[in-house]
């Protein structure tokens, strides 16, 4: 039982059930706001620039990137891992918090899941591009071919990656869509516009909401969620194996899977925080995404930040304790000091030190500072991937082949393009879909908010 005396009121403003649908659906009926057009315009410009980079890469080849013989992975893999990490928040929010019976997740899970979908889309573009000959991309599927038939190497982490990410995308998309079906039915029955009634009616799949359909819905949601939960852990573990099954110093460690998974959840929650602060400001959802909700996310981030710090220290300790000269060299001479000092210490500062400010209640209550720190986390997690990918590759076993890496304008453009794609996707979600899970909020409304015997205010 949710106790509002302990946890505070979840949804503010004494909402009734119809208030919830009205508030959440209001932005769908209002004329498109100016900020939407401006941001969408910028996102489209970014996507256009990104398309230019994609066109150049595909037509010329990946030789136009800043990669060299030593640093064979650069911006593309950094960005791929970064986006996949961000894409972990939705499922982490929906599933882990569902299992932990955290009712505050109901205001946030829909937006977090939407973010997951678009982040995974953005991530998926990079491996495609990195194939070089993208027109031969279908080689990755184990299909009946005339070369033997020659099948895939099922021991290759790169193949595991393809399987894991496409499964993750499908599972998240189904879970997200299924959660929206009852809300589409609410729009279908309440909208005055005939076109909307048709479109949302078609998307609601004929939802009726009787006892049996709710039973099946809840069961199916729990099953899909239960199956997606191990996927959250496995996807980023598999991504980390792209690195850790190699023999490159700095990559070849057993800490990688848990370190990557926790990093992914950290960056995902960071991005959720960024996005929810924007969403509640633009749509005045402060009654739904209350300061208490943001406070809960910041507390989680503080804890995960400590785990991140532990992971960083463990890496350093292991580099020394293993007695491997190469490992120690990579960490001491190429990360802590040396050419990539800036990237390394940015990572440490943004991920392990700055989030510790959340220990102070004053800082947690100041939404502007919380927003700025969430941006720092996003930046810090990008630098973490930069440190992992570039520093290890640039100086390996053979000093004669040491090389530095800096991205070309094409690589930067491809990255900006995927940011454009992500922002555009999120904007489309803000504009046309119910951004808060209406039926789930209604489900916890009475217990967490209006039940008189449990409230302090009444």
């Amino acid at each position, binding site marked *: 039982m949710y106790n509002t005396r302990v946890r505070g009121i979840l949804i503010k403003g004494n909402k*009734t*059930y*119809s208030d919830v*649908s009205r508030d959440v659906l209001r932005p769908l009926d209002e004329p498109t706001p100016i900020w939407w057009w401006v941001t969408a315009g910028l996102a489209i410009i970014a996507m256009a620039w990104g398309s230019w980079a994609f066109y150049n890469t595909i037509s010329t080849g990946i030789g136009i990137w800043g990669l060299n013989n030593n640093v064979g992975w650069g911006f593309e893999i950094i960005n791929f891992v970064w986006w996949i990490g961000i894409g972990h928040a939705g499922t982490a929010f929906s599933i882990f918090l569902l299992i932990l019976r955290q009712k505050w997740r109901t205001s946030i899970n829909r937006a977090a899941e939407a973010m997951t979908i678009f982040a995974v889309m953005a991530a998926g573009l990079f491996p495609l591009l990195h194939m070089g000959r993208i027109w031969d991309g279908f080689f990755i599927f*184990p299909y009946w071919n005339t070369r*033997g*038939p*020659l*099948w*895939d*190497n*099922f*021991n*290759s982490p790169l*193949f*595991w990656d393809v*399987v*894991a990410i*496409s*499964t993750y995308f*499908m*599972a998240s998309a*189904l879970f997200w869509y*299924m959660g929206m*079906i*009852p809300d589409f*039915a*609410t729009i*279908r*029955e*309440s909208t005055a516009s005939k076109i909307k009634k048709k479109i949302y*009616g*078609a998307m609601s*799949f*004929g*939802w*009726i*909401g*009787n*006892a*049996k*359909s*709710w*039973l*099946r*819905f*809840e*069961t*199916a949601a729990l*099953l*899909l969620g239960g*199956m*997606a939960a*191990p*996927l959250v852990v*496995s996807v980023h573990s*598999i991504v980390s194996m792209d690195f850790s099954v190699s023999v490159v110093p700095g990559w070849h460690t057993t800490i990688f899977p848990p370190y990557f998974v926790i990093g992914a959840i950290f960056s995902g929650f960071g991005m959720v925080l960024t996005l929810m602060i924007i969403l509640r400001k633009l749509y005045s959802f402060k009654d739904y995404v209350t300061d208490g909700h943001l406070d809960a996310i910041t507390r989680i981030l503080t804890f995960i930040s400590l785990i991140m710090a532990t992971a960083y220290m463990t890496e350093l300790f292991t580099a020394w304790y293993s007695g491997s000269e190469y490992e120690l060299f990579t960490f001491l001479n190429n990360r802590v000091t040396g050419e990539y000092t800036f990237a390394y210490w940015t990572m440490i500062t943004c991920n392990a030190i700055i989030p510790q400010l959340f220990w102070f209640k004053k800082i947690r209550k100041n939404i502007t500072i919380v927003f700025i720190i969430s941006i720092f986390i996003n930046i810090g997690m990008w630098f973490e991937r930069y440190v992992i990918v570039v520093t290890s590759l640039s100086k390996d076993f053979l000093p004669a082949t040491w090389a530095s890496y800096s991205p070309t304008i094409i690589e930067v453009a491809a990255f900006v393009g995927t940011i454009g794609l992500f922002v555009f996707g999120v904007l489309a979600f803000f504009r046309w879909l119910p951004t808060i899970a209406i039926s789930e909020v*209604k*489900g916890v409304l*009475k217990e967490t908010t209006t039940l008189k015997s449990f409230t302090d205010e009444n």
Partner: protein
Amino acid sequence: MKTSILGIYEDEDVLMHAIDKLQASNIKVADVYSPFPLHGIWSRLKLNTKLPYATFIYGAVGAVVIFIMLYWMSVVSYPLKFGGKPLNTLSFIIIMFVGTIFIGTLFTFLTYLFREKMYPGKQVVLPDPRSVEDKFVIVIANADEMNEQESKHVMKMLKETGATEIKESTVNLHV
């Protein structure tokens, strides 16, 4: 045409008590429409679902099928050695794990749609459209088979248990 009596309630707890009282006086509650899942209702209406068994079967079959596929491709069809590792390796487990989830998730969703007879673009008319908004609707079926005294009794009971509105409907969806 079959007619049902609808009792419309404003509050979920009032609704729960109403179901108990109706059932205690031998009135069969055929269905309940609500804007969100009410967990107490399923045991009261004696509803259950076999969906978890279906999911388990999909997962188990999926794992086996994927293992057979991997084994056949790597060991039987084209036994190609990679890095001196055995042909039938433990690392199959990763693809089996993810593939099991893939098959389990996809087919659970499809089974859900199939059992609910839901598909894109399906048109439905609800007994009372407010049930997806903020009202809870109790359906008492087969009102046309009742005599006047019986239907009056049903309506009286609905009123007594806190229904704010009582009406008749000819919409019969899952009844």
